[in-house]
């Protein structure tokens, strides 16, 4: 038997496969497809203090082996989340991670301190990288100093592990990861979407209501993988790999590049139970390779 479980501080993940924020709703919606308790973790849609209505439609468009989205962090807000969603997780045996977003540092901090009180929540993922909102969002994610202040401030009010989710739209993502590490982040997730656009040649206008959107899906996996590889050589805290994973092979590539855990995003839309297939594929790979612990794969490509 191979060991698929992974530890992050005191948190135990039964396997390294989580679902990425914004691509798996609040998790509950997928219960009709499979037992979501089988997942290593579930990262819910980006949450803000107040409900947000998001960007004007159209919000998605397919591109070659990818898609652009400009959802703009539409969400039900803190109050509704804790009253309607959280109780449903009382009996679901997986790590619930809340992806949080604020338009200024104070908002992030307030939200983090409030969420700190809920035992159903295993960790927070701080989204400093959403390209679809004007304030905060990507601006935060591109400046190491702002990241340092933001993460330090959150760490002061929240005891749960803090994961910082980074944007790929920068010259040197490892530099930003280092800032997060200095601020005592417990892990970093990379990558969020790459900013892109599509123009409608019929109307001669940007196709998306918000003009720009974030590129995700298999098209971007070589970029996410490279950034995980680069960052692995520059930091000591765990890396969570995300970007274009839709097969066991790509998931394993991320582990070999240095990710301790991985997230499945866009692929959930195509195959709702893809995460289970990926967990299964990782297990088979380990068996074939006669490796008894998934953690032994992490970073092997650097040797």
């Amino acid at each position, binding site marked *: 038997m191979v060991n698929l479980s992974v530890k992050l501080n005191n948190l135990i993940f039964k396997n390294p496969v989580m679902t990425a924020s914004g691509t798996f709703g609040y998790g509950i*919606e997928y219960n009709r497809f499979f037992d979501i308790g089988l997942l290593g973790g579930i990262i819910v849609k980006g949450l803000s203090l107040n409900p947000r209505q998001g960007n004007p*439609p159209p*919000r998605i468009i*397919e591109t070659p082996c990818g*898609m652009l989205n400009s959802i703009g962090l539409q969400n039900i807000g803190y109050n509704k989340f804790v009253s309607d969603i959280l109780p449903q997780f009382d009996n679901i045996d997986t790590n619930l991670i809340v992806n949080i977003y604020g338009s200024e540092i104070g908002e992030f901090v307030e939200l983090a301190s409030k969420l700190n009180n809920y035992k159903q929540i295993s960790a927070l993922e701080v989204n400093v990288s959403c390209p679809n909102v004007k304030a905060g969002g990507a601006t935060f994610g591109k400046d190491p100093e702002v990241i340092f202040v933001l993460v330090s401030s959150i760490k002061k009010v929240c005891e749960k592990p803090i994961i910082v989710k980074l944007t790929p739209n920068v010259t040197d993502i490892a530099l930003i990861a280092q800032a997060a590490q200095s601020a005592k982040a417990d892990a970093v997730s990379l990558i969020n979407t790459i900013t892109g656009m599509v123009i409608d040649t019929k109307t001669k206008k940007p196709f998306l209501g918000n003009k720009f959107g974030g590129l995700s899906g298999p098209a971007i996996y070589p970029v996410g993988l490279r950034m995980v590889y680069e960052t692995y050589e520059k930091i000591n805290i765990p890396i969570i790999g995300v970007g274009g994973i839709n097969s066991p092979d790509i998931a394993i590539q991320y582990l070999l590049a240095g990710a301790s855990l991985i997230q499945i995003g866009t692929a959930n*839309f195509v195959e709702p139970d893809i995460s289970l297939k990926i967990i299964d594929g990782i297990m088979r790979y380990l068996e074939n390779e006669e490796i008894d612990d998934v953690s032994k794969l992490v970073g092997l490509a650097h040797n």
Partner: protein
Amino acid sequence: MQTLVLSNDKVANDIYCLKLQKPYGFDYKPGQFLMIKVNNLNEPLLRRPFSIAKAVSSIDIYYKIVGLGTKILSALKNGEYIDITGPFGNNFEIKYKRLALVGGGIGVAPLIGLKNFLDEQKIESECFFGFNTAKDCFVDFGSIATIDGSSGIKGTVIDMLAHLDNSYHVYACGPNAMLSALCKLADEKGFSVDVSLESNMACGFGVCLGCSVNTIKGYKQVCKDGPIFNYTEIIW
């Protein structure tokens, strides 16, 4: 779910009827749709939404070739398998009024199942379908209008609706131009209208928040809150 293709025949200009083996326990309500992965590749990446036109002995879909996904779909042969998820979405609510079904082009598809259901329930309804030419027509019931007069009356489907008044409720699906003409008429004549809307979709069941439509109550998801909306809700 991998589903067997029973047939996939051209039924009109660029329009095909795909019949799939109905999986055990499959149940749907008129107005709902499936998400279909047209091949096993990453291109096209996403599933495509299609209304269920009927699900009696088989699941029947009528689709029009408009892009890559539907093109690939049209090459499917019986005996092959295709992956579907669903059914998704809300359904046509039956109103206690005189009922009219109004469809344009491929928008007729979801109304076929509704008509079938109404007939089963012995609920009377009138059907009005518009096409560009006889060659585009793929239904064998209802009153037909064609722009060029090659089948039924010459004109648009709207031209057949002069008799509708506030005793009527209309179920509609079709191109935006048709829907807005219909809604204008509804405002004048006082009949009510439920429309089936379209939108780009990624997931089909409410998690990606990609398929939003602007309504008087804020953004709603076409896949989950719809595809059927009362037309007065929608900010056109």
